């Protein structure tokens, strides 16, 4: 790392190259849609737009944010595009960079996205007042590569029913790692891993695989568990998808390697392989089976086209495979999940 700098850069998407932000000495700060801010985003954005984005905008309008040196937004979907527009509208003095993000991960897309990362690197260098070099980025990657193995160990404990606090605690750890200074996160994770493991694994609840987009409130995970579910693995953009190791060869340019890693990590629905249309459905089936889950819960945000238009294929694929599926739609508030408690309980009872 270049220097101790607690200045934060805001971000809102799991495709954000956190290692570059950290290489500039910044703490990446995930702007989660968890807030009691009044609903003001509706003045700019239509009612039918993603609640995730609107809650983030509400936080921006209400200044319910820490001091941010700047914000990095990704062109991951229509809603994120509009967030970038609306953010510039309500906070015109903020430094914003909006990165284009190809929908595919072919070589040309990786090369193009490398250029976008280079653009970000230039902007960050300007913001932080010094050139961010390959050496800075390599150091940042080395640090961030410490996180995925730690989270894998937590996942393993979760799967075995030996993580105290279950998936809600896991989510708390994800949330901390998304927004706290790296050293703090690392220290916390290592301390918790050093705690003695429960000798009495809690395996009486039903193992479930959870997929979707944004579900950051640990209370939502606790609610699933209170209904008798044990979330043994997730595929969420506020969960496992954010922290994946970057295979890094120091003798080669670093940005293409980050680009390849980001575009090839377990994808959000918006990124796909044209040669295997709707492979997302098979991926979810494969991961659910491998995890040993008895059922799958899909939790998506309302009006999220990348998911809404692909869920029918997921549903059909799981149906053919005989894997029960419960689809939930939310608006990032705990209330909408709470309203579905009866459905969740009925689903878990059916799996029992």
């Amino acid at each position, binding site marked *: 790392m270049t220097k101790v700098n607690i200045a934060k850069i805001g971000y809102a998407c799991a495709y954000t190259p956190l290692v570059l932000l950290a290489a500039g000495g910044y703490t990446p700060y995930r702007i989660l849609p968890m807030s009691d801010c009044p609903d003001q985003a509706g003045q700019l954005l239509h009612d039918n737009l993603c609640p995730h984005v609107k809650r983030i905008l509400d936080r921006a309008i209400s200044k319910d944010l820490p001091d941010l040196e700047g914000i990095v937004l990704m062109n991951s979907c229509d809603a994120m595009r509009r967030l970038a527009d609306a953010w*510039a509208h309500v906070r015109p003095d903020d430094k914003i960079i909006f990165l284009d993000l190809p929908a595919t991960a072919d070589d040309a897309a990786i090369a193009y996205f490398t250029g976008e990362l280079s653009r970000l690197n230039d902007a960050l260098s300007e913001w932080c007042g010094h050139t961010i070099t390959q050496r800075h980025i390599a150091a940042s990657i080395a640090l961030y590569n410490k996180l995925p193995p730690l989270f894998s160990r937590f996942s393993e404990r979760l799967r075995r029913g030996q993580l105290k606090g279950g998936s809600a605690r896991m989510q708390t750890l994800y949330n901390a790692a998304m927004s706290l200074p790296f050293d703090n996160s690392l220290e916390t994770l290592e301390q918790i891993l050093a705690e003695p493991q429960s000798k009495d694994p809690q395996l009486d609840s039903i193992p479930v695989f959870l997929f979707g987009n944004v579900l950051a409130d640990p209370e939502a995970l606790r609610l699933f568990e209170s209904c008798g579910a044990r979330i043994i693995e997730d595929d969420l953009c506020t969960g496992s998808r954010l922290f994946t190791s970057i295979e890094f060869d120091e003798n080669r340019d670093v940005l293409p390697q980050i680009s390849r890693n980001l575009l090839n990590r377990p994808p959000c629905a918006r990124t796909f392989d*044209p040669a295997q249309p709707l492979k997302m459905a098979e991926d979810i089936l494969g991961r659910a089976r491998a995890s040993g889950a008895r059922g799958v819960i899909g939790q998506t945000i309302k009006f999220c*086209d990348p998911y809404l238009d692909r869920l029918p294929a997921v549903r059909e694929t799981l149906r053919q495979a005989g894997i029960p599926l419960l689809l939930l739609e939310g608006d990032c508030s705990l209330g909408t999940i709470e309203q579905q408690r009866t459905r969740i309980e009925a689903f878990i009872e059916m799996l029992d």
Partner: protein
Amino acid sequence: MYQYFKDMAAGIEAKIQQDPDLPNPRKKYALETARLGSRLYSGKDTVAWCGIAVPFDLLNAMGITSCFVEFVGAVLAATGMAEPFLEEAEQAGFVGDTCGFHRTVIGAARKQIMPEPDFLIATTCPCSGGIAIMENLARIFNKELFVLNVPQTDEPRNVRYLADQLKDMVEFISRHTGKPLDLERLRRAIECTNKASATMKAAYRLAQQIPSPTNGRLLINFGIVWPLFMGTPAAIEIAQAYLDEFIARIKNGAPGVADEKLRLLWIQNRIQFNNPLVELLEKEYQTNIVSDELNDIYWDPIDPDDPYPGMARRAITIPFNGNIQDRIKHLRKLARAYQLDGAINPCNWGCRQGTGAKGMISEGLKEIGIPVLNLEVDCVDKRNFAEGQLRTRLEAFIEMLENQPRPQH
């Protein structure tokens, strides 16, 4: 469907023949659309289902019968047949919160009334829903899908990226057809595009006159459908017909709307199913929809000797792409050119790209004195069409416009 389009084409041809000396722009435009429909369903052509930002002149130069998929939703809605296809999609799990155009297309594909393509070409612009639907169609038809990632701005690096993808697309198509691109044919196609664009630009300029020679029906869906004929003589013929029609109307003192009082812009998509709103505006309020957002030549002539950068730039600068400030800038340009009094934004339910930024569009136009009426409507699914409510809002909007000073353009 093949017979439907064939009969439609024959009927329009017969009508044109009744007055062959008249420009007949709308008929010629409808005729080409019907011909395209019959080619799509003929079972003889190489067919590609595409995204909106695909360069259709390039595909036409390669002998591909191609069309954007939303066309199917629009045709089914316009003919009053969308409902069973919407229901089919919904029963398959495509929820009502998604785009009506896309749900209709999925329903049509599932009910096997969409022609089976030889391949598909998706574009990331204009919307996330559109590309997801292309992925679904590729799976339904079990055909190869090519994706064009359309960048957000036309800086040189972005233009190069898309231009290179277009070259890859040509290889992809050649692999399917077994025929390489004929460079001379492409050159001629681009010359057609340039001539058609220049002609239509002149026609649009005439449409800006007060009173306007156009009306709210002559150019419905034009800016989005006409590009399907780019690269062919038909695009020139249609553009010339509009130009001739407008010249004749101006010369004869026959405006598009008699006693034109107010001039409006229609933002994004028209309501595709039969509805009385445009007629209401014209007949009861002498209010003319003189332009649609896409009815504009927003791109520069394309170099026939090096067409890829120009085609890429055209795709990138489509008003639906990029940031909202650029889109507002374009809307303001139209507002000034057409000396508008107001604008209607039909916030198509399920369209995040189009309606997502409705507040910013309203503010952006209001700043130059152009009030915007946001109509909550689904442009394809008429099951929730609240005609009375919309009529009341439209009337109130017109009354408001009538009672305020005209914007200073």
